[in-house]
């Protein structure tokens, strides 16, 4: 009975559309053999895609209750967190899912870099992947403002101010991003539209093209450029079921991990944005910390150039690393550069996270200043106490601030 119904529908469809060809195409895609070295390390890309689906679904659900206005945004997120059924879960999956998705993309790029998969003929797949990564960072930047709390307001103020320091057209960009002189309701609308309409379509378009390029050219082998491109039928690893099985192992694992984080570390909301009080120690999300920290050491313009260099290197890397070898051990220089770059990003990220904080180490209190240099608070208190004897009318010498104009 059911079989008959299915065949009736099939016949109806194949009378009108090239159903057989479509099935043949899909079958071919499913059976396509992957190079023999393809392993669990090759599941980060599809894991990112899975997490993107999570972002889209939870994002749509959040939009049901979220109100993008200066008066209502904070309260609506509070409503989601406290009143809406399972609202905390949906917001948690969205906020933490974004972080895990970015981490997954970093791992995916690291795998591609280390295995030389970006080399000829796949240079543009890499470049497109970099643009996907930058777009995802754009999601992070615009999404961070939406809860309209103090941290998000001031991180956006500083972030757009940094954009304003770009020579020639910086103030134009800043004004356009903010929708006015200062971050305000206009900025919220703009970021909301970018976050829920513009960026998603851009991302879906780019990701589709990225996947098409990957499927058309096939996964990169580990052999030198030009060799081992064609995996003969019967050799290698079939995409279905072998590789799909690996993905179906990894997806639930990560999803359970994500759920665990969401439950154990609930996303906070903080205080409502107040344009007249800047809180102490505002910091961007972790993925912006390295460039945030770099910006402190240089005057604004130079800082932008310095933190722009790693992005440019990333983007143009396939045209710089042009040796034929793909195996990491056979191209030590480029692997070394990549490793050093990653370690530098980690270093500046950690310094950025630790800066402007008081910590206790071996029973002694330290203040880590904005440059990441720790100062023993006990000593400076002694110093301050002794200085109180001698008048210091301007009060300028109490803290080891850099001299005037250093940050130009």
């Amino acid at each position, binding site marked *: 009975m059911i079989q008959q119904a299915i065949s009736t529908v099939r016949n109806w469809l194949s009378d009108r559309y090239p159903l057989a060809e479509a099935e043949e195409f899909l079958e071919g895609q499913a059976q396509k053999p992957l190079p023999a070295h393809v392993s669990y390390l090759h599941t980060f890309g599809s894991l990112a895609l899975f997490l993107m689906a999570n972002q889209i679904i939870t994002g749509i659900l959040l939009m049901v209750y979220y109100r993008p206005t200066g008066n209502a945004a904070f309260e609506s997120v509070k409503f989601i967190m406290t009143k809406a059924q399972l609202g905390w879960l949906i917001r948690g999956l969205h906020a933490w899912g974004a972080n895990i998705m970015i981490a997954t993309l970093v791992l995916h790029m690291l795998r591609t870099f280390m295995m030389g998969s970006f080399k000829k003929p796949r240079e543009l797949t890499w470049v497109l992947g970099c643009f996907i990564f930058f777009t995802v960072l754009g999601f992070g930047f615009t999404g961070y403002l939406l809860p309209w709390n103090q941290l998000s307001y001031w991180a956006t103020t500083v972030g*757009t101010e940094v954009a304003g320091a770009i020579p020639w057209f910086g103030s134009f960009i800043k004004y356009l991003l903010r929708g006015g002189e200062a971050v305000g309701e206009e900025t919220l609308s703009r970021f909301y539209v970018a976050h829920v309409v513009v960026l998603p379509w851009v991302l879906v378009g780019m990701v589709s093209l990225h996947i098409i390029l990957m499927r058309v050219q096939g996964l990169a082998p580990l052999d030198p450029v030009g060799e081992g491109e064609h995996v003969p039928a019967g050799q290698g690893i079939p995409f279905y079921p072998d590789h799909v099985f690996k993905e179906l192992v990894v997806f639930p694992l990560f999803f359970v991990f994500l759920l665990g984080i969401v439950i154990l570390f609930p996303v906070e909301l903080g205080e409502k944005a107040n344009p007249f009080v800047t809180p102490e120690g505002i910091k961007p999300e972790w993925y912006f910390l390295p460039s945030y920290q770099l910006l402190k050491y240089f005057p*604004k313009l130079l800082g932008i150039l310095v933190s722009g260099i790693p992005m440019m290197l990333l983007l143009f890397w396939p045209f710089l690393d042009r040796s034929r070898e793909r195996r990491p051990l056979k191209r030590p220089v480029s692997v070394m550069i990549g490793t050093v770059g990653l370690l530098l990003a980690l270093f500046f990220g950690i310094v950025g996270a630790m800066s402007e904080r008081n910590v206790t180490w071996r029973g002694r209190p330290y203040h880590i200043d904005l440059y990441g240099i720790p100062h023993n608070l006990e000593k400076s208190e002694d110093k301050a106490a002794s200085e109180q004897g001698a008048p210091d009318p301007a*009060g300028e010498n109490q803290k080891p601030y*850099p001299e005037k*104009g250093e*940050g130009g």
Partner: protein
Amino acid sequence: MAPDEKEQPEKKMTRRGALDLLLAMGGAIWGLGMAVPAAVYLWPARSSGPAEAVVKVGAVNDLAVGAAKMVQSRGRPIIVLRLGADEFKAFSAICTHLGCVVEWDPARTVISCPCHAGVFSPDGQVVSGPPPAPLKAYPVMVVGGEVRVKVS
């Protein structure tokens, strides 16, 4: 095909070529015609309404010597200091470094920025830290026992 194309000099315009060109130009004009209004629409509208030239801070007696008060003018914060019996100062409270809002530190008698440790003197000049320029100053008047800041 290739040799034929070489033989035909590019200058010679066929009917088909002319139509293609016309279509391409039409498409470009149409695209521009859509893009320009969209870009103009996206350009932020200037805040409308009469600009208050004078912001009232409050009675002289409400602001103690050595204290500061924050007031707003068109949504932007202004910090007003009372440094002496008759000495008032007013500055834009937006740090010239990265746009955070500065605070008056009465203990150290400086204006400080919580974001990147910028420090300004009570005159608005940079004392230390990364700010590239002094705070923007506004003239202060006392009219009939009331402190007023002239913002434009």
